[in-house]
């Protein structure tokens, strides 16, 4: 599986390079907004707070693009010619699918690290911002609840991708000759599963409305979110969604091993 991850990363090196160059350029562009503010650090502070938020938004867009690419390349493997290379390998379906999940985690880590690097670069260039957040950076990165929240979000994203992969694979197992029929069917399966899980999630959340996860992810960075006050997070619906993701992973692996129609 790791060998496959290595090759898939190698295949994406151009994409990653372009993405990181674009993000670097955006960071530097944002940095130019501080030029001339060095004389008045206090005045620059309000502007400074918007800039990293804008940067965070750019990284969210970057992550969304990488997620779409993950789905598109997987679909291309199933519906395109390169599938003969990947699915012809003496690997189990779980290993092929696992390599995709690992890629997603790598994309997530890259986005987090890239986002943090951007903020550090901007903080160095923005005197107002640096003064505001420098004391909190260290404690914030050691906040347990923040990492619990990140892991929870990652688990939900991985589950979402597993469901997407299941839909694409299921569509492909049903038909070979009518490729468009397969992709339409895949999309319908994904929509149906997501819709059903959303409805079920809402129902569970209503029924178990008292069950909440209380976290203080921003307790060491009180200028963001609720600060030292605990924030409420839904618990039952995300857990159900993660379980659905695990089920989708198992079923997709089985389909790859037993019912593939390239």
């Amino acid at each position, binding site marked *: 599986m790791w060998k496959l991850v290595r090759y898939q990363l190698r295949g994406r090196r151009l994409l990653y390079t372009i993405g990181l160059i674009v993000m670097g350029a955006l960071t530097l562009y944002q940095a130019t907004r501080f030029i001339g503010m060095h004389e008045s650090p206090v005045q620059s502070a309000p502007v400074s707070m918007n800039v990293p938020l804008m940067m965070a938004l750019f990284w969210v867009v970057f992550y969304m693009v990488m997620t779409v690419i993950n789905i598109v390349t997987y679909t291309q493997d199933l519906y395109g010619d390169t599938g*003969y290379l990947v699915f012809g390998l003496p690997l189990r379906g779980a290993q092929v699918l696992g390599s995709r999940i690992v890629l997603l985690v790598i994309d997530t880590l890259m986005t987090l690290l890239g986002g943090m690097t951007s903020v550090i670069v901007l903080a160095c260039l923005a005197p107002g911002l640096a003064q505001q957040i420098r004391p909190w950076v260290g404690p914030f990165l050691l906040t347990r609840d923040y990492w619990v929240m990140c892991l929870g979000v990652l688990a939900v994203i991985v589950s979402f991708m597993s469901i997407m992969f299941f839909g694409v694979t299921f569509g492909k197992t049903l038909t070979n000759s009518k490729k468009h029929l397969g992709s339409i069917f895949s999309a319908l399966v994904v929509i149906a599963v997501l819709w059903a899980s959303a409805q079920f999630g809402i129902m569970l959340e209503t029924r178990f409305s008292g069950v909440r996860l209380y976290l203080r992810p921003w307790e060491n960075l009180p200028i963001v979110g609720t600060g030292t006050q605990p924030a409420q997070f839904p618990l039952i619906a995300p857990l159900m969604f993660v379980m659905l993701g695990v089920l989708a992973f198992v079923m997709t692996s089985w389909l790859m091993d037993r019912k593939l*129609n390239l």
Partner: protein
Amino acid sequence: MSMVVQVSHLTKRYITMTALSDVTLELPEGHIMGLLGPNGSGKTTLMKILAGLVSPTSGSVLIDEMAPGIRTKAVVSFLPDVNHLDRWMSVGEAGDFYADFYLDFDRKRFDELLGIMGLTAVQKIGSLSKGMVEKTRLSLVFSRKARLYVLDEPFGGLDPLARRQVLDALVANFRTDCSMILSTQMVADVEHFFDDVVFLDDGHVVLSGEAEDLRTRRGASIEDIYREVYGHVEAR
């Protein structure tokens, strides 16, 4: 003589069509089988099933007495009829890829074949002509010491000279402890390599047997028999 391939009453149905219907065939060790038929006759589906890329609807398929799956993928060297290599890879990286995943891949033989084919390891797949990609793919497939070689239209993008090169490589690398299934429309060029021939039409086996026996019984070459069998198809 041990059988490398045993296919019994194999049927493959999709939602909208039946690609293979009640196909039965056997391929002994050391034999080359010609899988012949017009477009849409089921050749590619049969080859994909043997390569473990398509699952049968019913019937049984055994390769080296194993059902298609992870273990047979390790002993079957499959050449699809389209370019299955990633365009970002160089020829050398494609070799690395095969060496990493297939234990039977012989790197030395791959380098030799590249030399014979006039290719270098640094060339990018995306920058190669169709014929050169075909040569790269064939070099990869023949560099494996597989039990079964499954070649789907291996001469598609090749000029006559390159075809000769490939055929020479095929003969030079064929071992008696393996078998090969080859589908092609260029029957005249390769028919003298065939030990067995299977004619498929609309998913059914319409004629099969030992190539020499068919030639003797019908007093015609395999190419002539092909014309005779598929005359109705050409006329359609």
